[in-house]
């Protein structure tokens, strides 16, 4: 679909880059993170001719977040190597990158054109809007969560603060046994900071991996020195002179702490979209073409609530995906929507999490009641949990088994059937099993 000529409010003066006579419509992307940066580049690659403005509220050019809880926190990744694109890239691709401007308000006309206003008062008129505003850490409704020494981790600023604290901390309590919490725990423990993870659910990474995988992961973390407490909740935080001293648990225990990291999930940043009148429900509701309820505005990445893109899905299940893969693949699909290619977003979702020496990779989306087939690999520490829905392979959780992960990701994409009995046979590698399944008999 070609973008509409500008008829929205505001004068051409609002955006010096967009010409008064609108032959080259202006694409404005709010949110300069993984999804926004990829959308800008991909729209250009796929033929968007007009000006592209990419606006971010942080004082940095788009950067990659995964190292923030891993190598960056350890001090192994310098700041300079987090950037997703070089400065020259934006110039060469005629992407006007604006950083340190937080968009506060969007006026959206019925045809998808409008004006965005930043907190500083700067305004941009657009012919087409894309929202890539990401997510923010979920708030923990607990007493004294505002004590000094209680942190969350989402952006570079948070990571720098946490890295600084870790140099002096003597007791860290991580609230939440999800990916980020466990990554921080592994990193902190390796750096010599005694660490306890508190998870309310009976197993770690409760919503995203099977109990079988969670158990192996917990064992590995314990062996590395992380203390793990499952099935207990923090009741309140205690402090002296405004600084954290302990976490009180609902089973009566009290854990001393001079540093607390809260990692209890993320919430979509959809308030701009809501205020602009777009339908939001746990994120900005979009269709398979990444179009919001007005049929014009694009939303991508962590902020979007989308139909399950898995090849096996019938599109009725909606979800939010918080992964680099989703940010990149959804943005690629959205760029096609902007330039008229109209490819619906179809992809095998995948995710990785490096927790100390553990490499966890997940391909596909499992539901809690999907059955499991466990495979042990040839190298020590290699485990793969295959998830079956009836006779159908729907996902895999791979520990230190990148080859299995790649084999399953491909099989799910091609919808190659892999019978359960075959899968259980560890005499052949998964790659070999799948190659055999692929060969027509």
């Amino acid at each position, binding site marked *: 679909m070609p973008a509409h000529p500008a008829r929205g409010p505001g004068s051409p003066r609002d955006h010096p880059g967009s010409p008064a006579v609108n032959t080259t419509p202006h694409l404005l992307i709010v949110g300069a993170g993984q999804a926004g940066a990829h959308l800008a*580049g991909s729209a250009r*690659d796929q033929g968007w001719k007009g000006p592209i403005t990419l606006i971010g509220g942080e004082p940095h050019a788009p950067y*990659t977040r*995964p*190292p923030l809880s*891993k*190598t960056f926190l350890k001090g192994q990744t*310098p700041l*300079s*190597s987090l*950037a*997703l*694109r*070089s400065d*020259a*890239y934006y110039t*060469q*691709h005629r992407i006007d990158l604006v950083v340190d401007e937080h968009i506060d308000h969007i006026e959206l006309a019925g045809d998808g054109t409008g004006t965005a206003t930043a907190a500083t008062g700067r305004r941009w008129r657009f012919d087409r809007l894309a929202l890539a505003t990401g997510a923010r850490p979920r708030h923990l409704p607990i007493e004294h969560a505002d004590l000094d020494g209680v942190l969350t981790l989402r952006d570079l600023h948070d990571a720098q603060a946490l890295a600084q604290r870790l140099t002096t901390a003597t007791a860290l309590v991580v609230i939440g046994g999800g990916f980020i919490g466990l990554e921080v725990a592994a990193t902190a423990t390796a750096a010599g900071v005694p660490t306890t993870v508190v998870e309310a659910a009976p197993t770690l990474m409760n919503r995203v991996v099977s109990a079988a995988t969670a158990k192996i992961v917990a064992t590995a973390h314990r062996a590395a020195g992380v203390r793990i407490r499952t099935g207990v909740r923090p009741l309140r935080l205690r402090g002296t002179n405004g600084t954290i001293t302990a976490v009180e648990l609902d089973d009566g225990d009290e854990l001393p702490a001079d540093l607390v990291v809260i990692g209890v999930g993320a919430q979509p940043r959809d308030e701009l979209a809501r205020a602009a009148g777009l339908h939001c429900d746990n994120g900005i509701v979009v269709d398979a073409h990444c179009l919001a309820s007005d049929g014009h505005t694009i939303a991508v990445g962590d902020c979007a609530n989308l139909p399950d893109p898995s090849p096996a899905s019938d599109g009725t299940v909606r979800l939010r995906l918080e992964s*680099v*893969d989703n940010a*990149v693949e959804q943005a690629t699909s959205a760029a096609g929507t902007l330039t008229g290619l109209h490819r619906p977003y179809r992809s095998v979702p995948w995710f*990785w999490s*490096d927790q100390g020496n553990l*490499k966890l*990779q997940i391909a596909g989306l499992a539901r809690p009641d999907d059955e499991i087939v466990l495979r042990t690999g040839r*190298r020590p520490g290699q485990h793969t949990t295959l998830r079956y829905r009836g006779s159908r392979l729907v996902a895999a959780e791979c520990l*230190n*088994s*990148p*080859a299995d*992960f*790649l*084999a399953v990701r*491909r099989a799910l994409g091609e919808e190659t059937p892999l019978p359960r009995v075959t899968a259980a046979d560890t005499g052949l590698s998964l*790659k070999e099993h799948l190659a055999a399944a692929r060969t027509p008999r």
Partner: protein
Amino acid sequence: MPKIFYTQPDGRQTALEATAGDSVMQTAVRNGVSGIVGQCGGSLSCATCHVFLAEENTDDFPPVGDDEDEMLDCAATERQDNSRLSCQLILREGQEVHVTIPEAQL
């Protein structure tokens, strides 16, 4: 300053000046060289940074590691003797590196 020459499957070549300490993958992705995706940012999780390394550069980098080896076996384009994951090719000052990009990464 290290220099990298990327050759596309159709023979087109891009030459880039790189920064020592960065990888062949990072340099490509940051500058928009098509055909190197590098989704996992170099943490050996995606195998979307597969390249064929020129013979004259074989000894310029540490040998293929265990995870890299397993992943190359399952890369989207069939592995060859000179296959590498370019995120594992960390550049040193003064190097000149030639790589060819495979047909498919995903």
